[in-house]
Each structure stands twice: as C-alpha cells, then as structure tokens.
C-alpha cells in the first residue's frame, strides 16, 4: 500500500545547494563581521583616572556644593549678627540720650515746682 507519508519523505529528500555555496557564505562573512570594524576594548575602556573621575565626579560636585552652601550661610549669619549688634548699640545710645534729655527736663520741672510762688498784688487783698 502506497503511504502518502512515505511518498512525502521521498519527495522531500534534502537537496544540495548550488556549487560553491559555502565559499560564497564565507566570502560574505568578513563584510558583516570585519574585525577591522571592531574597536578593541582596550581603546574603548576608560583609563583608571578617567574612570575614577567619572565615578566620583557627581558625589564630589554635590559635596562641594554642600560645603559652599554651609560657608555662605555662616558668613551671611555672621554679617547679620554684626549688623544686629551695631543696630543694638545705636539703639542703646539713642535710649541713653533720650533718658538724659528726659532727666534734664524733669530737673527743670522739679526746680520750677520748688521755686516759691510770687506774692499776690495788694489790690486783690483789699477786695476780699
């Protein structure tokens, strides 16, 4: 009995490619995988100094920024304190001046109060 599966196997026996196929493939290889186009890793790879710089540059920049911010803050705070101290001294001087003026005014007022009143005119005494 003729089996169609056996017929298929027979009809589909592998066939050889045209002569020189392997050679054509081999000739095509260098075009796609030419070693000359491959850049050696040693060139691509970063030198230790560059690699270390690339690795630590961002943290170093952050640390520097932080230090600058701290010192600037301290300087501003010192200036502010000096400014406040000067203002305080000026205020103190003004206060002392004001107190002195007030004291003088009070002295004058006190003297005026202590001074004996002038005698009334005689006409007025007769009328009463």
């Amino acid at each position, binding site marked *: 009995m003729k089996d*169609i599966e056996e017929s298929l196997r027979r009809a589909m026996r592998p066939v050889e490619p*045209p002569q020189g196929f392997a050679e054509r493939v081999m000739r095509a290889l260098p075009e796609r995988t030419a070693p000359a186009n491959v850049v050696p890793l040693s060139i691509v790879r970063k030198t230790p100094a560059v690699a270390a710089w690339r690795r630590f540059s961002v943290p170093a920049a952050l640390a520097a920024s932080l230090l600058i911010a701290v010192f600037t803050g301290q300087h501003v705070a010192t200036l502010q304190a000096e400014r406040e101290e000067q203002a305080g001294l000026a205020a103190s001087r003004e206060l002392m001046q004001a107190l002195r003026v007030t004291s003088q005014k009070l002295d004058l007022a006190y003297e005026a109060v202590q001074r004996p009143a002038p005698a009334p005119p005689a006409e007025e005494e007769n009328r009463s």
Partner: protein
Amino acid sequence: MKLESAQADTPLLLDRARRGDQAAFAALIRMHQSSVFSIGLRMLNRRDAAEDLAQDVFLQLYRKLDSIESIEHLGFWLRRVAANLAIDWLRRAAYTRGTPLEEGAEIPAPQADDDPLMDRELLRLLGELAPAARAVMVLRYQEDRDVAEIATALDMPVNTVKSHIKRSLTAMRGKMIGAQLITAEELP
C-alpha cells in the same frame, strides 16, 4: 576536509569555529547546507530565494556561534532559524507562491522506487499550504523531526503541530485522489 571525518570531529569543529577558525566554520556550513537549503527550497519554492535564505541563516549562525551549546543544539538552531525565517519571508510576500520551480532542479536524484510525477505533485501541494503548516510538514517529513521538537522550533503548541500534520495530510490525500495519482484504496 572530507564530510565524514568532519562529522566525526564536529564538537571540535564547533569549538574551533567559536574561536574564529574560518576553515572550521566552512566545514560546519558544508555539513548543514543541504538541510538548511532544502528547508528554504521547500518553503519558498525558489532556488535563488532558498540560497539567499540559507546564506542569511549561516551568517546569523556566525554572529551567534557563542550561544551554540552543542552539536545537537546547532542542528536544532539551524532548523529553527531557517523555518522561521522562511515563514517571515512568505508572510512579507517577498517570495509568494506561483513561481514555477526550475525543471528538475528541486527533485532529488531519482532512485529505484521513485515516482517523479507523484513527487512533483506532492511538492506542488506542499507549496499550497499556509506558511506555518508548510514549515511543520517540512520539519516532519524532510527533517524527520518529532512533533515536540517541531513545536519548540516553531514556538507553537504540540497539539497545533499535530493538527497541522493531520489536516495537511488529509488535504493532500484528497487532492491526490482527485488528480487520480492515488486511489481511495491506497489510503492507509
């Protein structure tokens, strides 16, 4: 290098090819070129397209040599890539059906029990199958692979592979009977 001795030393060849030995890679091509070219020929029905496909497969192999684990893996890898590439090409309609095969070029050398008319008709019917079904039939009857391996190679469930085989055989038998190349009594 003789093919027989090359086959005996295939693990060594693979190792040498991985290390950049071009002669070893050429030997690997010669060992597998018939299988890969025939997959392309049965799938695409054109010798020029089959040669292009086979060349593409071997160039891909050259780039992926480091990922090939063993000789068995090499054969499986080549069949898988060839079949899937052919399906892709067919789906992109670059190599659609209808182009006549070159006279006598696609039929293997005749043997004693050959029936050239039957063979030609079977190959014509094979060319009428959908790309996935055709790939299943090629791997099953040309490459003599089992359904599990075909399923893995084509990334489809085993039952789908079985279904493709059954439906394709039924369709081919029906058309062969219609063409009076076989009779209903000859069905298994």
